[in-house]
């Protein structure tokens, strides 16, 4: 993650204080209250410089990633379906441990027959028309959205950014909250931002997430679905369909690791809270009505 653990350990205030004393050749007997105050201030500044990416910064990364994706896949402007997908997504989000993000959760449809979904950092989730066509019922669609929300809450997109980029950005940002960036610093930050977006885009669109990230997002999805009252079996149903439809396919959502078969096995083994499924047919009728 950003900054990485090793950087955080190195920047432990106590270690920094000791290092500063050693480097300055300062003896303990030389320490006056003023000097201690100055050193403490410096230690605090360095500590702040090792901060992780803020949620508002993540929001701008997510916007840029979404801007890249929507330049390839145009928006599918269907007011009825867009509202429906947002209602399902918002319902699930309210049952997670992160119901609010800096810019909120937003769900949109992409006009593509490809079966795919993208979780842009910060809360923008994009689902293709092909994905909508491939799911059978509201609970399966909810499972797709819950899985993507899991990636957002786990910050999997942000984790794709090379840690060196954020470390470099922090050097430019510094620790002074009141600082205004000059043209040179702004250009450097834009360059680092651009590299960061490339990293996230490559993971989301080309390479896919890692094995553990997918499994964690699936496990989170099961919990969110159960908490919201959706049938967690919707995820199994969706993965089954994905496995059938994705055989031999090497593009889009099928590039993820682990493969669908392994994900299915993991989902089957994950303990799930039992939920009342009596309203599933009612929701399936709602889905059929919305998508006809």
């Amino acid at each position, binding site marked *: 993650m950003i900054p990485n653990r090793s950087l955080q350990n190195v920047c432990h205030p106590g270690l920094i204080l000791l290092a500063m004393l050693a480097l300055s050749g300062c003896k303990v007997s030389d320490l006056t209250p003023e000097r201690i105050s100055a050193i403490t201030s410096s230690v605090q500044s360095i500590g702040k410089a090792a901060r992780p990416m803020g949620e*508002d910064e993540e929001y701008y990364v997510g*916007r840029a990633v979404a801007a890249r994706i929507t330049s390839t896949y145009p928006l599918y402007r269907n007011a009825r379906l867009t509202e429906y997908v947002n209602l399902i997504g918002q319902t699930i989000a309210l049952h997670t441990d992160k119901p609010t993000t800096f810019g909120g959760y937003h769900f949109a449809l992409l006009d593509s027959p490809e079966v795919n979904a993208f979780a842009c950092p910060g809360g923008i989730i994009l689902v293709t028309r092909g994905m909508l066509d491939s799911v059978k019922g509201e609970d399966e669609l909810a499972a797709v959205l819950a899985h993507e929300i899991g990636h957002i809450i786990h910050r999997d997109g942000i984790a794709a950014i090379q840690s060196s980029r954020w470390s470099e950005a922090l050097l430019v940002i510094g620790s002074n*909250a009141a600082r205004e*960036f000059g043209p040179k610093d702004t250009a450097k930050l834009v360059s680092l*931002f651009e590299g960061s977006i490339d990293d996230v885009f490559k993971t989301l669109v080309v390479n896919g997430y890692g094995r553990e990230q997918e499994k964690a997002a699936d496990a989170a999805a099961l919990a969110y679905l159960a908490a919201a009252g959706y049938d967690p079996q919707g995820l199994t149903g969706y993965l089954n369909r994905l496995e059938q439809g994705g055989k031999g396919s090497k593009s889009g959502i099928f590039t993820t690791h682990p493969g669908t078969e392994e994900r299915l096995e993991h989902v089957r083994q994950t303990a799930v809270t039992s939920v009342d499924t009596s309203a599933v047919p009612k929701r399936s009728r709602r889905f059929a009505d919305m998508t006809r």
Partner: protein
Amino acid sequence: MKTNLIVILLSSLFCLPAAAETIQVTTRENAIRSDCRFFAPVKLKVALGDPLTVKGRKGDWYLVSAKGVSGCIHKSAVESRSFSSAGRKASAGGASADEVSLAGKGFNPQVEAGYRTSGKSLNYAAVDEIVKYSVGEKSLETFVLQGGLVQP
């Protein structure tokens, strides 16, 4: 005599009036609600950086007051979170003014503006359209109810 002095000192430590804890809103917009649940009536709309005085906690909610209004706000709207290298939540706590002002100093609208002119194929108009879209709270509540789902 010595024992009495220790008792007085300890008592004074515990009896000191606790300084009111102030936290800040960490989302672009949010709300202080009359009850500690989503869909409860909104008493006051709040925005990024707004200071809130903490009066207590109730589960995932903070009991707060601001601008003479008291109510509840969900912790995710006011807490800053740090993450381990594995990307999982490591800790959480009310965001201080310092954290709120420092966050966003790097990747911000100024940097986004620079990126927009980078020559890459970008569709920010679509993104603005996406983030502008929202469903009404009443619609959401009805949707949950009609679908036999759980009220958050």
